[in-house]
């Protein structure tokens, strides 16, 4: 290149373009920035993983260690389950933040208002703001039937080809919601711990129990129990089986659900 005023040739230092016209010297800072961005993205996504993306080793599933399953008790039972109630429940819980606010009344006196004494405190009001919510979906079942361990010798009488049997009244055997039956559908906030989740599940069990009772689970268990046992007795050669239900004292439902000493 020639300088017009001095006529001297100036030599400008230029980077050599490669075969494809790619200028490595000019693009070097760009390379460094791109590398830094890539490294940062890798650390952010794979190692920090703030949004809990299900990628790579960063979100590897937490696994339990192998431990022994210890059989603690073996109990002989004679439970004739004749009715089962199934339900898919939605269990919700909301956490609120409470704030106390003073309530004032404007004074009727114009002069007092001018002096800034225009309002008098008449009480307090509590305002609530929603700060967290959890929604669980739980699939549960309730098993009910006749407890044959309550049968005695006196409960059977045979006259010719007719059997007279008195069976115990139907009762609830189990209310079941297993961990695999629980789905965490929605959670907003970290206000729930192990204990509060257990209490929510227990609340779900109580609701399910109420629904099962309103569906007359015990009456249906009694009715089908009589029908089924009558058929079974007939297979043993009885022409007729007359079955009545023995009324027993009501079982403590709280103990069935496993909510002893729990206030909900």
């Amino acid at each position, binding site marked *: 290149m020639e300088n017009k005023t001095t006529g001297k040739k100036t030599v400008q230092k230029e980077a050599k373009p490669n075969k494809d016209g790619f200028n490595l010297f000019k693009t070097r800072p760009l390379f460094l920035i791109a590398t830094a961005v890539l490294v940062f993205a890798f650390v952010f996504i794979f190692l920090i993983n703030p949004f809990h993306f299900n990628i790579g080793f960063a979100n590897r599933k937490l696994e339990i260690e192998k*431990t022994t*399953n*210890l059989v603690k008790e073996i109990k*002989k039972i004679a439970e004739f389950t004749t009715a089962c109630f199934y*339900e898919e429940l939605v269990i919700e819980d909301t956490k609120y933040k409470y704030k106390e606010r003073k309530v004032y009344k404007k004074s009727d006196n114009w002069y007092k208002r001018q002096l800034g004494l225009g309002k008098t405190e008449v009480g307090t009001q509590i305002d609530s703001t929603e700060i967290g919510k959890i929604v669980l979906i739980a699939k549960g079942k309730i098993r009910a039937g006749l407890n044959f361990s309550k049968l005695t010798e006196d409960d059977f009488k045979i006259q010719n080809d007719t059997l007279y049997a008195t069976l115990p009244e139907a009762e609830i055997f189990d209310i079941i919601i*297993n961990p695999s039956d629980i789905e965490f*559908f929605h959670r907003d906030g970290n206000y729930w711990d192990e204990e509060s989740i257990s209490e929510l599940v227990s609340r779900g069990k109580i609701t399910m129990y109420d629904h099962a009772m309103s569906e007359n689970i015990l009456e249906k268990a009694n009715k089908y129990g009589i029908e089924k046992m009558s058929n079974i007795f007939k*297979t043993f050669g009885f022409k007729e089986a007359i079955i009545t239900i023995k009324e027993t004292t009501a079982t403590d439902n709280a103990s069935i659900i496993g909510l002893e000493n729990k206030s909900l």
Partner: protein
Amino acid sequence: MKKLVILICGLALMSMFSCKPEEDSLNKRIMGLETMAELGTVEYTVTKIIKANDPKWYKNGERKIIFNSVAYIKAGIDMQEFSMNNVTFNKEEKTVSVVLPRAKVLSFNMPPEKIHVAFSEISGARKEFTIEETNDLKIQAENAIREDIPNMGILQDAENNAKGFFKVLLTQLGFEVITIKFE
């Protein structure tokens, strides 16, 4: 005009992704009652320690947790298909032969309210276990117990107890020679 079209499209998209259908589906409850005829003859109470350690080489600190859990497993005989074909008897000789179906697990109950944290340690820059993570650990423990059921001998106990129950019942009904088999 163009802006109006964009606005309408935007509103239509927003209504598609609004939470209304989700709320509707939540309000629908599914329930049902069915009859059955299952004779439960044995109940096993199984305890398990749920242990999880979550070290990560690229994170500072550890997370450890231990739960105590208990599961109730009931096994017995499904009497739904029991019929005349399963029984042969002679009233004069007071003999009866009964063929019962093989025992099976009737119920599995691992109450969440009976699973308690026995130990928990969070160190360094690690976060607490979330309730979703701990529930996942409980599900793994539940599956581990379920997988171990065939090795517990519960089905054999259920059949022995069923045999004992029917022997007592058939004695009450006047039979003296009682044979019970499982098929």
